[in-house]
């Protein structure tokens, strides 16, 4: 029997049964924009950046199983326009000031905004009030930048076995919380060595005393646009112990 394959923007892409559209594309070296997806974790499908058109229907590439002969539209003006709008929504929902952010140049949100040529935030800013949590001796939590991708939630639960993070609230009031009656990270079992400390695609979870170790201009997405880079292993850049 032939290897099953799908057509991604007209290109045949082989896949093995059980793979999602995202996994098939990544294996073939084709970039589909994404934020909450991470190859090490169970797909979640919440950011919707990876929305593609499969056989004429809008679906999330990270959760939709690939099917033989499926025709997938990815890099099209319509989809990129929708993705740009989603990015703009994320930018106005939180407080994202790239020039003063420690993650600038290592940030997936910023890299995608460049990639998709997002020039302004377009929508009125929400300016939510999200106090930072500096209680932990090793790690700072800056909730202003949280995009609710749940990667830290998944890493702490599935890899670290600690369940340090969770989501509370609903709708536009949804927010990240930590596992302590005091609500402070210092009162959880969180440690800098946790996987969860190194999966944040934006600048929420930051190691203390490492700020700007790697100069701006020499960082991951400063060197090469995201779509040109090989499949992303980890989102951690300058700010993390491995770097």
């Amino acid at each position, binding site marked *: 029997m032939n290897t099953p394959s799908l057509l991604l923007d007209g290109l045949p892409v082989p896949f093995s049964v059980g793979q999602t559209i995202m996994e098939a594309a990544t294996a073939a070296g084709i970039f589909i924009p994404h934020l909450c997806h991470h190859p090490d974790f169970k797909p979640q499908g*919440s950011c*919707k950046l990876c929305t593609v058109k499969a056989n004429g229907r809008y679906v999330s590439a990270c959760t939709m199983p690939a099917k033989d002969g499926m025709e997938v539209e990815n890099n099209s003006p319509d989809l990129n326009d929708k993705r740009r709008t*989603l990015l703009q*929504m994320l930018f106005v929902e939180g407080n994202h000031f790239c020039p003063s952010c420690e993650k600038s140049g290592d940030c997936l949100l910023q890299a995608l905004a460049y990639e998709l040529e997002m020039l302004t935030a377009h929508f009125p800013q929400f300016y939510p009030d999200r106090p930072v949590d500096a209680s932990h001796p090793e790690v700072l939590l800056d909730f202003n930048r949280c995009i609710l991708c749940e990667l830290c939630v998944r890493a702490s639960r599935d890899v670290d076995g600690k369940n340090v993070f969770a989501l509370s609230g609903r*709708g536009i009031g949804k927010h990240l919380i930590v596992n302590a009656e005091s609500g402070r990270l210092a009162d959880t079992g969180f440690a800098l060595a946790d996987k969860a400390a190194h999966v944040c695609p934006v600048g929420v979870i930051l190691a203390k005393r490492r700020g700007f170790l790697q100069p701006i201009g020499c960082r991951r997405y400063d060197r090469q646009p995201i779509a040109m880079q090989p499949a992303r292993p980890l989102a951690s850049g300058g700010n993390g112990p491995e770097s």
Partner: protein
Amino acid sequence: MADECFDATAVAALLQPIVERHRRDPLRLLQILREAQEVFGYLPRTALTAIADAVELPRARVEGVAGFYSFLHLKPVGRYRILFSDHVTDRMLGSVELMDRLCNRLWIERGKVSEDGLVSVDTTSCTGMCDQGPALLVGGRPLTRLSAERIDRISELVRAQVAVSDWPEEWFLVADNIRRRDVLLASAATPGEALRAAVARGREQLLHELKRSNLRGRGGAGFTTHTKWETARRAPCGDPQGGRYLVCNADEGEPGTFKDRVLLASHADLVFDGMSVAAFAIGAGQGLLYLRGEYAWLLPALHEKLARRRRNGLLGVAVCGQEDWNFDIDIHLGAGAYVCGEETALLESLEGRRGVPRIRPPYPAQQGYRGQPTVVNNVETLCKAALIALRGGDWFAGLGSKQSTGTKLLSIAGDVESPGVYEYPFGVSIDQVLHDCGAGNAQAVQVGGPSGSCLALHEFSRRIAFEDVPTAGAFTVFGAHRDLFEVARNFAHFFAHESCGFCTPCRVGTTLVANCMDKIARGDGSQYDINEIFRIHRLLHAASHCGLGQTACNPLFDTLNKFRPAYERRLRSLDFAPAFDLDQSLSIARQMTGRDDPAAHFGPAAGVQRAER
């Protein structure tokens, strides 16, 4: 903070009987949280910690669940918690003015607890009392037909700290208001009759009858019931311990619908019969009825009915003499979350989690409650299934239209003489319904609630049917004097409030749209804002995770297309220059006819010409 009042040891002691009653089962977390709140008035931090310890869940998970549902509170809300139903029909009956009146009388601000911690007043999504509004919930009990006099009496009772149970009983009366009966509402089946008929037919024949009936789900989506049942019946059980499950979706949250409330209040045995029939067909051992939190007041009567069915051998071991079939029904209460009407969000909620819709596939019929094959059916669908068990598939298929067999219950409210529940065979025209309910001057009907469609006068000849105007049952009529912009604005806020927040487009988009509508309402809008609404509508329709987001902008889309002036008269500037100039396009005609008089001009140019003369 008031948190200090509760020390950990005292809290644990108070929670002990609750968690024990629920066998420390983490799947029952939502029920535990609801009951804990009844003890403390809200959910203090210490209580969340104690509950997390008892059910062995991470504390943050418990807090996350408590933070999701509107009826669970992480901060004190006052000993009297008064929630005004905020559906557009309540507003049309003056609920906003009544709420202001109550707030003034009690010297409080909406949404804030009085300084003595006695009372808070706020709004909540439609409470399913549209035919007898304006309505409110006090301590979880519905109070209907509000009036200024009644509001004044309420403020006196609250200030005198009279217990809600001692308030006049007639205030809490909920009428059925059944206005038109057809096969379902006229059914005189005795408790257990449909189940015995199903058992007498046997599984195969029952499924065959269901197939012939072509029954489709009454919750709105219209999926073929037989396909669901057959899939669940054939799907392998992953866990040999767990069997199949039958879930009755009584989370009737679509604003404007209340027919399930009437079925549960006055035809509960038919609902339970339908559940038992479905369970028998798929081989389920456990039935779960998910009752929306707003209907918690129905609980005692429903429990009594279940107890009687157990006594009569209609539930329990070897039901109806079937040696190999044990079946019982449990009731779970929701806690104020419209999204839980979506069947996979409902399953998450049943399992004690945040009501976030699951990724599909797998579908519930393959992997549903606890990962087992599960059928989720609407209350009305199950009643219809009971009737089919009694009278056969061909009989049912003879009613309604070919693609939409049987009858449909409509919840009719708004500008009509006789609001209430009407049962019609599918295929009835909007005109006919409007005539029957006494809607003399309707300019629009919202069919199927905010996520359905808004029909204008020229569409009143259309028919209620899956193939024409599908509906979950809401039928809200707006008279000629109503402002459709305000209707749409109410719906926009509803969706922003009820978005679960899981996916980006719905979480952010519904709030952006609600803000946009507020801007237009203030008189600060322009054509630009209308373009923005269309743009967000297209994105939500394409990229949202579930039906809530996909349909969230429907009411705006419909009213913008059909009632544009309601928007445009509010705009600061139209800010819109058409690509062609009507007057200019007549210039050739003028040249050819040799005319240049005012009658040969359009728009301002006609006036200019006149002035020149």
